[in-house]
């Protein structure tokens, strides 16, 4: 079980996340929603141990993850928001690097990489440098790197960005399957439909504070509307239709 207990992170004196608490149980897929600057990425970085919280702790099976980060990270598969990879390594070499750093058996590693590359349709370009990969290909490499050691906890930060329709569908089904297999999945996204479809629970952040946390069904029931409308209701007071109309007006404007 992964627990975030009163997590607070301040940059200088500005709070990015305040008093964030939640529990992630095996089999649960927790979606994290929030507009830009709501503290999603900071939360993810604290959950992965990349950032130390200013206050509060992240516990896994009752132990503070900071006590033995290496052991915790062995159980963690993480897909960051941006696909920063070494462009001069090939896809195969990058995955081999990750697998070796994770201490995977070399024979299993080669087989696993090969199979996963095939399943993610990257096998033909496995020996091409990552620098020449499209955004979607880089994202698939990150996904493979996160899942190939069969970790217990998955933290996905905008995992679908750049993926084509087929890969995105495969991935959504994969997340659901991982949940069914008892893995812990923390899923950050802007795409409400995906969160609605793949997550069992949802956490909505605004300006670093949790403003709603419940199962996807309950959150919708509370306000009697879809997740998208609930989200808009909770987070932003913006009339999206009127903004869209204004954009079209500006597009048509010509200088006098």
């Amino acid at each position, binding site marked *: 079980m992964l627990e975030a207990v009163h997590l607070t992170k301040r940059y200088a004196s500005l709070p990015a996340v305040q008093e964030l608490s939640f529990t992630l149980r095996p089999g649960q897929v927790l979606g994290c929603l929030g507009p830009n600057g709501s503290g999603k990425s900071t939360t993810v970085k604290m959950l*992965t*141990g*990349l950032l130390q919280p200013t206050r509060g702790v992240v516990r896994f099976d009752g132990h503070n993850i900071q006590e033995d*980060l*290496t052991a915790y*990270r062995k159980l*963690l598969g*993480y897909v*960051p928001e*941006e696909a*920063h*990879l*070494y*462009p*001069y*390594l090939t896809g195969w*070499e990058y995955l*081999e*690097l*990750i697998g*070796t*750093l*994770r*201490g995977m058996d*070399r024979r299993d590693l080669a087989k696993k990489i090969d199979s996963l590359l095939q399943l993610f349709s990257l096998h*033909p*370009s*496995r*020996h*091409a*440098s990552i*620098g*020449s*990969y*499209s955004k979607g290909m880089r994202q698939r490499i990150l996904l493979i*790197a996160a899942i190939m050691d069969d970790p217990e906890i998955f933290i996905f930060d905008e995992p679908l960005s750049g993926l084509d329709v087929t890969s995105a569908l495969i991935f959504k089904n994969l997340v659901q399957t991982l949940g069914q297999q008892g893995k812990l999945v923390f899923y950050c996204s802007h795409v409400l439909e995906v969160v609605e479809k793949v997550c069992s629970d949802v956490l909505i952040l605004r300006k670093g504070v949790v403003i709603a946390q419940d199962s996807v069904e309950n959150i919708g029931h509370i306000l009697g509307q879809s997740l998208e409308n609930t989200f808009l209701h909770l987070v932003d007071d913006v009339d999206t239709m009127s903004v869209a109309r204004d954009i079209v007006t500006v597009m048509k404007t010509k200088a006098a």
Partner: protein
Amino acid sequence: MIAEAIDAVLFRWEKRRQRPFWRMVYLFAARIFRGGGDSDAEGLDLGIGLVLTLLAMPGGFVSILLLNKYGTFLQWLRGQANVDPLLVALPDEYFFIVLSMTVTGAVAVWRWDAIFPDRRDYMNLVPLPISTRTIFLANLVAVLFLVGLVAIDVNAASCLLFPVVVGATQSKFLFFLKFAVVHALGVLLASVFAFFAVFSVIGLLMAVLPPRTFRRISAYMRGVVVVCLVALLCTSFAVPQVLRYMPAPRWIALIPSCWFLGLCQSLRGRAGPVLTELSAFALPALAIAALVALCTYVLGYQRHFVRIAEIADTSAIAPSPRTSRMGALLDRLALRTPFQKAGFRFVGKTLLRSETHRLVLTAVGGLALVLASQALMDAFEGAKSLRQAALSADALSIPFILSFLIIVGLRMVFEIPAELRSNWIFQLMVDPERQECEGLARRVILILVLPWLLAISLPVYAYLEGWKVAVLHTLLAITWAVLLTNIVLIRFRKIPFTCTLPVFKQHSFVTLLSCCFGFLLYAVSTPEFESSALPEPVRMLSLVPAAAALWFIPHYLGKSANEIERRLIFEESPTQTIQALRLSD
């Protein structure tokens, strides 16, 4: 009235600058300076101002240092009367020509991938309503503008200061003026020639090779050009001496810098027959280089840029089984932990594939090769036989020169970051408390140095001097290489290429001086001692206490480091001016 005129000119210039063509010229000029290619590297992305300042610095520094040589008071103190400044200035003139060629050539090699428009330009510009011919012309104008800018920038300080320094002994202003104009002409033309020569090499390769082969060969070709530039720089000490001999050797005509020296001396009316003959090459060579560059640029543009959409973006070549077998062998013999195995491959691939690292390492390797060749030539000078030459201090110094520069060069290269934003994976996966970085760096250095020491030094000396001398010499070279590696890795606590660039510290000068002093001890004094001791091998034992001390010091310093000093870092913190004492802790 004047203000209005200036405003009108500025307004017209601003209007012109906003035209699509000039916007593209600006875009290409900025791209050439800030980088191109596939990488989004930020490692050595310096600002244009800083780059220009750095390029101008060598010429300025050298000119100032020459004050010592040309100062009239100092000449009087040395008892040098009636000195002919034009004769005395010849070696320095040659040095400035070589310096301008080397620096400009190095800029062309550094920006090799960015000179031609690439896939990114194609994807951004071609869909716009601009013809590919306009893109071609805009890039050409940007390249020509930068050639001029770099040539002027590299030589600006020397064009001003060097004539002032030389002319200080003369009372006539005309002498200064004439000297300055000829010097400026010589170095500027040499700079432009160097740029076009490198440009021609790229263009020729692009015109001749298929895109995929070009991409693969390009890296090695740049290495060759860097070695040539380092070799050219090294001629600055030898060529002026050679030119004094009559008749000068024929190979001197193959060195382009001599042509421009000849041109300068001819314009001053002080060229001998050799320099007059050499000066005849300068302008035709420049014209040919420019013409070849332009023609190959057109061809390369047609073959590569216009057809980028047809060329596959990815090139997939499987690694050879030989490489995999070597990796497996290293895993079994030298690399124990998963971190070492992964780290070694990462370091090896970065050294081979990252543009910046490869170039720096090639420059160091080129310098090592040039110094080693010089030592080899010195060894044969005056030697009666091959065996006698092999036992001279010069010949014995070759493995020491090579290993010193490679070890120090690798240590330096480890500090240069590669794709810093991608180091999150190491931050996520490597335990900062377990200090394996030093072990990894040591293994990388020793694996890159020791095998060739064994493979070359041992059989060559066994053949020439017998097994006893061969074993002693190789053992000494290996021991010294291991000890030097330990010294350069004292308190090394980063994964190579994953940490920010080191900040300048007060002890940086001391480190630089220690390097120079270390080179003298390592590659000059040791071989001299060895040369004298090899006839009586027992004397070699006197090196044992020194070796023991050199082993103990890094070992002791490593052990005495506290937890914080051992912790793995990904960011260099600047030296704090004020530190809290934390007396209550």
